[in-house]
């Protein structure tokens, strides 16, 4: 009886210990809701995350081995393409939209400005195949990875199988992306009562809650839904957003509500990057709304803000900057993996 008990308790301890390792890899921040991503279908492990990180930074995903995910998603700009209204990809081809900032993706149900991608795992297929971005295809990517010196080893470590598949490639990329959690801004520390807003930031926060938070919902600063925010259509692009996916006229000009976290560094703004500065964004919401059938219900009544109030809101938005995210070494280019010795 007793030895059985010992074994049983040891077993329990082992299970608990094993689980706690998994839990440590992804922590839901205290003020955040439950993630949307189903981790049970893609259990995290350190080796898979590191493999995903290598794939994220490796231009092997593109046709000419020159463009990586990081080309349009650099860490210092909250994983977007800073300074370009429309992101450019392979051979300097100009894309159709402004690349979105990447963070808190575990809480996102759909991806892309128009929600055309239904699962984080499938997201990477779009830029890999887009002729203006990487112009490759996943079948050939897997072929190239299999033929490399580095990847069969990394896949074996991660999945216990050196035969590379599309499934494992995409799941590894997801694992790295899931770890891009931004939850340590000044705003978060204020919410956790570890810090306080200045009076200007606080005034901005009050105005934000009154005018902006119905779509840019706390704590993720997006409701993960689609809205027409009253921007006149750019006739050089004729991008009708969500309509492209659903073909439903009521979805015309609707785009995914983006998170405002790290907005200080993720300029330019909007799906086509038409605004370079936050002050322009403020002016759009007070003076630039174009009324049409699909305009967001939240914007039917005009937003009235004095120029001082706009400055206060911007001061609040700057509290959403998360330096521990923008400079987190866990997200850096994995130079140790890509050094010549590691490849041999």
């Amino acid at each position: 009886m007793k030895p059985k008990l010992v074994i049983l308790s040891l077993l329990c301890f082992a299970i608990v210990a094993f689980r706690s390792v998994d839990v440590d890899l992804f922590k839901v921040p205290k003020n955040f809701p439950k993630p949307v991503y189903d981790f049970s279908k893609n259990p995290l492990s350190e080796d898979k995350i590191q493999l995903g990180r290598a794939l994220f930074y490796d231009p092997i995903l593109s046709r000419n081995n020159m463009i990586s995910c990081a080309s349009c998603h650099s860490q210092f700009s909250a994983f977007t393409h800073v300074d370009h209204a429309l992101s450019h990809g392979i051979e300097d081809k100009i894309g159709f939209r402004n690349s979105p900032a990447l963070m808190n993706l575990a809480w996102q149900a759909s991806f892309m400005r128009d929600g055309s991608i239904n699962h984080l795992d499938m997201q990477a297929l779009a830029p890999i195949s887009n002729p203006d971005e990487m112009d490759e295809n996943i079948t050939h990517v897997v072929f190239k990875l299999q033929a490399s010196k580095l990847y069969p080893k990394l896949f074996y470590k991660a999945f216990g199988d050196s035969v590379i598949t599309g499934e494992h490639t995409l799941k590894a990329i997801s694992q790295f992306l899931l770890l891009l959690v931004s939850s340590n801004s000044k705003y978060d520390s204020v919410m956790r009562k570890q810090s306080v807003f200045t009076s200007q930031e606080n005034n901005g926060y009050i105005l934000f809650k009154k005018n902006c938070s119905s779509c840019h919902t706390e704590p993720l600063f997006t409701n993960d839904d689609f809205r027409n925010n009253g921007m006149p259509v750019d006739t050089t692009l004729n991008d009708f957003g969500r309509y492209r996916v659903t073909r439903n006229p009521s979805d015309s000009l609707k785009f995914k509500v983006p998170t405002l976290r790290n907005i200080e560094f993720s300029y330019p703004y909007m799906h086509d990057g038409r605004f370079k500065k936050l002050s322009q964004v403020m002016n759009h919401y007070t003076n630039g709304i174009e009324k049409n059938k699909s305009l967001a219900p939240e914007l039917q009544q005009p937003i009235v803000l004095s120029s001082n109030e706009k400055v206060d809101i911007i001061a609040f938005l700057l509290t959403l900057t998360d330096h521990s995210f923008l400079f987190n070494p866990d997200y850096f280019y994995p130079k140790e993996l890509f050094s010549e010795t590691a490849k041999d």
Partner: protein
Amino acid sequence: MKSNKTFFLLLFIAVYGGAFSQTNSVQFSVSTTFGATHLDLVDSAFTTSDSKHLKITEVKFYISKIQLLRNGKIVLEEKNSFHLVDAGQTNPLIIVVNNTQNISFDQLKFNLGIDSATNVSGAMGGDLDPTKGMYWTWQSGYINFKLEGTSPLCTTRNNEFQFHLGGYQKPNYCLQTLSFPIINSSKIDLKLDVQKILEQVDLPRTNHIMSPSAEAVLISKVVANAFTISKN
């Protein structure tokens, strides 16, 4: 004499053993034809009933959720039932469903395509791996059925036609559930006749479908009606 006995004994074992193993499973053989001819993609010049020559270059489709029923109730079901059929393969696809208890049935059901729930479940392996070329990249979703070729009826570049049928959301949900009466057979042949499909499609007008649409749903129904089954 002795060798003769052994021969009969071996024959007995072979026949009996064969029959025994047959009754312990249901074996499906899935193939693609053009009319009565086996569809050969390498050398595929066919003549339709209106004497127009055409070529088929690709036929690929998913069969999923294979079920056997008796009196309308499911009695046998294949687990993880997703199969990619590729007419480019020389041999027909063989699917074996275990029937260890010799359960009798009177109906076969299966889906042409991939169901909605699977479409939103992230990356998957095996026949569902996106490297199989049956997943859209610009907009999430599996391609249930692919048919490509050339016909003089198409005024397109190189007279090409391309049907990529898929769509997992209403109103353009393309999945088709097929049902056939079939009584207790251990070998079932499932055939898709591409000629039947092309005779139902107005090729001069409809020759390119590459995204979920009402037309994709319509042609998915045409494809579903081009299947036949027979006991083997």
